[in-house]
């Protein structure tokens, strides 16, 4: 029903269709002529579209083109390998500053898939865990995703809360309480809930719009991660939060880059 539609959304859609119809960037004048709208109106629309990162301007160019993020919209968010590429430097840096192993995980149905693993930098023999999966309710990565990505993870009630150690959270109420704590302070942790003696902490990686698309975590012996009262040691918490913000920033930057198709070296 045309009568009930919102005009500015219709116009924004027309701008996006127009930009999608060509490989070259379009200027304000061209858009205004093609849509038969006054320039100030078109300017307001493209500026808003730029703010939500659906269109971009190249540095030193006033013209607009579709943002790369828009191409990913229909494919259900962030590619896990793009996420790994964005995270590589900061994951290495986090392992270097904490002396702990670093894991990056994404939701895969009722599991967490480990998409990147940096060894604990102490020269000890370790097995690469990239490609493995973990339960959502028992590891730090999973709890972080449950807490911060509620749309892409199943409700806690739908999870099979299997026991792995004496400390695994196996009832919905206490799991929900854990998640509420995690949301309040910005990261999730677990003390030997998946593997005896081993703990972890994880913070969310956010894509444009603030959606959590992955979890970046550190893992190691419980007494190295946690101090008195089972609290995550403060330097570890600070480094973790810093690294997760930097990775989110790198991801945003990657998504904002103009779609590279057509670009020539």
């Amino acid at each position, binding site marked *: 029903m045309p009568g009930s539609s919102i005009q500015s959304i219709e116009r924004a859609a027309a701008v996006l269709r127009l930009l999608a119809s060509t490989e070259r960037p379009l200027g304000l004048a061209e858009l205004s002529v093609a849509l038969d709208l006054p320039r100030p109106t078109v300017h307001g629309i493209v500026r808003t579209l730029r703010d939500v990162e659906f269109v971009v301007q190249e540095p030193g160019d006033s013209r607009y083109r579709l943002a*790369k993020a828009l*191409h*990913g919209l229909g494919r259900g968010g962030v*590619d*896990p*390998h*793009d996420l*790994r*590429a*964005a995270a*590589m*430097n*900061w994951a*290495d*840096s986090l*392992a*270097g*500053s904490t002396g702990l192993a670093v894991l990056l995980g994404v939701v895969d149905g009722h599991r967490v898939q480990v998409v*990147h*693993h*940096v*060894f604990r*930098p*102490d*020269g000890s023999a*370790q097995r*690469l865990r*990239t*490609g493995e999966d973990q339960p959502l309710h028992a590891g730090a990565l999973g709890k972080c995703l449950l807490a911060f990505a509620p749309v892409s993870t199943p409700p806690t009630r739908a999870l099979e809360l299997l026991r792995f150690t004496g400390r695994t959270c196996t009832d919905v109420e206490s799991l929900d309480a854990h998640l509420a704590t995690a949301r309040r302070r910005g990261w999730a942790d677990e003390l030997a809930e998946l593997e005896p003696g081993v703990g972890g902490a994880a913070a969310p990686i956010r894509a444009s719009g603030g959606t959590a698309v992955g979890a970046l975590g550190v893992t190691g012996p419980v007494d190295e991660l946690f101090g008195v009262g089972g609290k995550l040691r403060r330097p570890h918490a*600070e*480094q973790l939060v*810093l690294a997760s913000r*930097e990775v989110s*920033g*790198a991801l945003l*930057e*990657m998504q904002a880059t103009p*779609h*590279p*198709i*057509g*670009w*020539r*070296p």
Partner: protein
Amino acid sequence: MRCWRCRRRRTRSGGARERVAAVTDRVVAAIDQGTTSTRCLLFNRAGRMLAVAQREHRQHYPAPGLVEHDAAEIWHNVQRIVPAALRHAGIAPEQLVGLGIANQRETTVIWNRHTGKPLARAITWQDTRTDGMVNRLVADGHGEVITEICGLPPATYFAGPRLRWLLDHVPGARAGAEAGDVLFGTMESWLIWQLSGGVHGGVHVTDVTNASRTMLMDLTTLEWSSTLLKILDVPERMLPAIRPNAEVYGVCTTVLPGVPVCGALGDQQAALVGQACFAPGEVKCTYGTGAFLLMNTGVRPAASAHGLIPTVGYKFGSEPVYALEGAIAMTGSLVQWFRDSLGMIGSAAQIETLARTVPDNGGCYIVPAFSGLYSPRWHPEARGVMVGLTSFIDRGHLARAVLEATGWQTREVVDAMNADSGVPVTRLKVDGGMTANHLLMQFVADVLDVPVERPLGSEAVSVGAAYAAGLAVGYWSDLEGLRSNWHRAAAWEPGMDPARRRSEHANWARAVDRSVGWVQTPSDT
């Protein structure tokens, strides 16, 4: 070209804003002057990166086969990124103990010592304009002498023929060179000269690793060869002095006034150092636009009977350490082609996603001989082929074939190294942007049948330049100390069934056969 390595680090990221070094901490600066961009990185004593700043420079393509850079633009970028890196890390110039440089090798520039201006754009290592000249050198019977003295087979890849081209084609170049007004350098020479005073007494030096890629240096004496200078008709007056890799060449008069410029290495040799390959037999591979494997061969140059290039690895102090090099032209750039020219993927990293949609290559192989085959086969007339196509093949199989091409090319170079050295490679240290591809790294381990290891921080090139500078001023005392900075961040263990490895290898070899001999010279047609 924008390579994998640069893509992710184009960043504003800067680094470590909240983790800045204390004001009393001393740090080393490295400049990585690469093909697509120039970066400045700061490192602490543990070899940890504190900050990075980067600027891309323009690629000039005046005609097919010609690739040029503006050396003045690159110098301008250096003047901007160094202060930017210091700012990111909150570090004052007084905290710097020294500056090291790693550079794209074989890229050639000539400039006027009185004006400080290049006489022409720098001719880059990818440029093939000296093709005819190199063929004539071989036809005139100089090939054997050249290889005997400098270790290199005559090829367009090296700097000497480019210098000759500039002398022949740029007005005033030869007369200026003979009069002592015009200087030659690869990019490290140009930057050291500018940093150390430029027109006001800049130091004109190169390092042994860059000099070993000119086709003008005697690989044994590590001095300019008068025979080769005569063959290429290059006036000796215009050449920089050849220096070791770690030594105070001069002191910055601008950008970082008072800070010594005290390290320089070609980028691939810098990665050998950054990966701490200090013992004979140790090998590293840097995966970028192309891939470069270097094996430490110890204190004597090792000739290759299997298509590798003997080169200087590094020279710290009086004794040089040599290396055997295998150069693969297309690795990351094949993925880039797959993304940009075929539009199969939205980003380089997504090739892994696409490849994982299928369990294997479906019988399809791609040989990326887009500009011929480099090490170890050296077939300039080969061109790319895609074989084994059936209706069954989809995009996922092509993505597998693209990645596997990098694996098999690595295998061929490692086989050549094993044959030349007689001591099999037992593990491969890798760095560069493509190490972010888990599927590829596993495939490399599978086809080599040895573990593949990635160090913490894949910035081996810059780390190597920083190490050279730090060694020169005693920031680090010896190579063993540097070795302890190397930490394993990942290891891929081989897991392929030997029978399958053999049959896939045979298929790859048959695919390569089909790429060879494609370009026909006029006399053949």
